[in-house]
């Protein structure tokens, strides 16, 4: 899919976004999305004392597709504002950045 996102967004506008994944039993959680070319090594989450995993990522203005990789399994974010599909046709989450 040829995404037009950059034509519409303001590339200079970055906003820090916090992602939280509640998976206390997981061994690893990564954030994957259009913004890191779905590369699982780019944004690993850190587990907090409460067992939840989190990460802050600077994202450009616009709408971004993303998901968590929980022990390698693509997982939707239940706190996400939207749902869509990635280029592979898998259901993923949607986050707006203003």
């Amino acid at each position, binding site marked *: 899919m040829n995404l037009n996102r950059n034509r519409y967004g*303001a590339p200079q506008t970055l906003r820090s976004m916090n992602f939280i994944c509640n998976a206390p039993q997981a061994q690893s959680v990564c954030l994957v999305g259009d913004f890191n070319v779905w590369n699982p090594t780019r944004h690993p989450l850190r587990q907090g004392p409460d067992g939840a995993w989190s990460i802050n990522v600077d994202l450009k203005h*616009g709408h971004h*597709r993303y998901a968590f990789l929980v022990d390698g399994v693509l997982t939707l974010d239940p706190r996400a504002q939207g*749902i*869509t599909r990635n280029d592979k046709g898998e259901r993923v989450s949607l986050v707006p950045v*203003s």
Partner: protein
Amino acid sequence: MKKSAAAKRGPQPRSSKAGVERGQGGRIHPVVIYPFRQPGDNTDLEELYRLVARLDGERGKYARPITVLDRKTHYANADNRRFLEFRKDTVARHSDILDAWCVDTCQMWYTGLGQAFERGGPEDVYWLIPGDFNYGAAVGREVLGRLHDLPEICLELQQDVCIGEIATDHNNSKQLIDTYGTFALLYNWFPAEAQEIRQYTERPRSEFFAVRHGFLEDALRLRWFAYEQTVVMLLQAVFGNKPISRFFVGNISDLPEGRESLASAMQQVERTERVLKTLWRERQPHRTGWTERYRDLEEKSEQVRRTALVILENLLG
């Protein structure tokens, strides 16, 4: 209550400064469906048209908004000075009014989206904005501030349909109709497609949505039902394996004028069944033995509808 300056300014489309410049991509065509019944006061409509005025001011990103106004609404308010002034000073100022005789809201959609489509181009997106919601309340203003995400998602992520989902409590009549009526009937007539739709939304009859030009072209050329058109569009999107997105736009309740009575809820369930039956039949022309399958599904559908009506009677009656 005295409004704050921020409240008076109303919701701001977030991406206004970084908007779509004409020539860089498609434009967004807002289509407002004016309430069939003129509300008792204009608070909600004034808030809505503050947004429409801002959209109208961003011609690079948005096409001139269209307001579809049923002639019955107009004539019912022919002596209503407040209505006539609002129409002239606000609605006509910030949008092109499309006066039309319509049998139902879905025909108002058809008329408005059809008109917008004829003004649009292949890269454009069409954004339906229902007028009969409580935009004047705090939660309504929040929703108004998020609605622009729907067409932007279509543009940015090349989605054919983006459905806006409104959160309601479990006892809300719309939620009850969808849970016990719409989805139950969908699972009967189109089980695979119903599962796909439910993966996206719990509100398949949402009136908040945006569609891309190509998909709207297909939808306009197919049979256009006079009701439950969102369900039909979602089914057509699933049949055609079109990209669908769902976006949460907030919590909102209908205006008291638009809340369902039991009779209205029953009518909506019956309409949904009628639409699904017709659509199912239309997809079977070359399949042998479809009539037998149809009778079987129809029998089950009647059971589903009756059960839904009993539940709705218990909860809304």
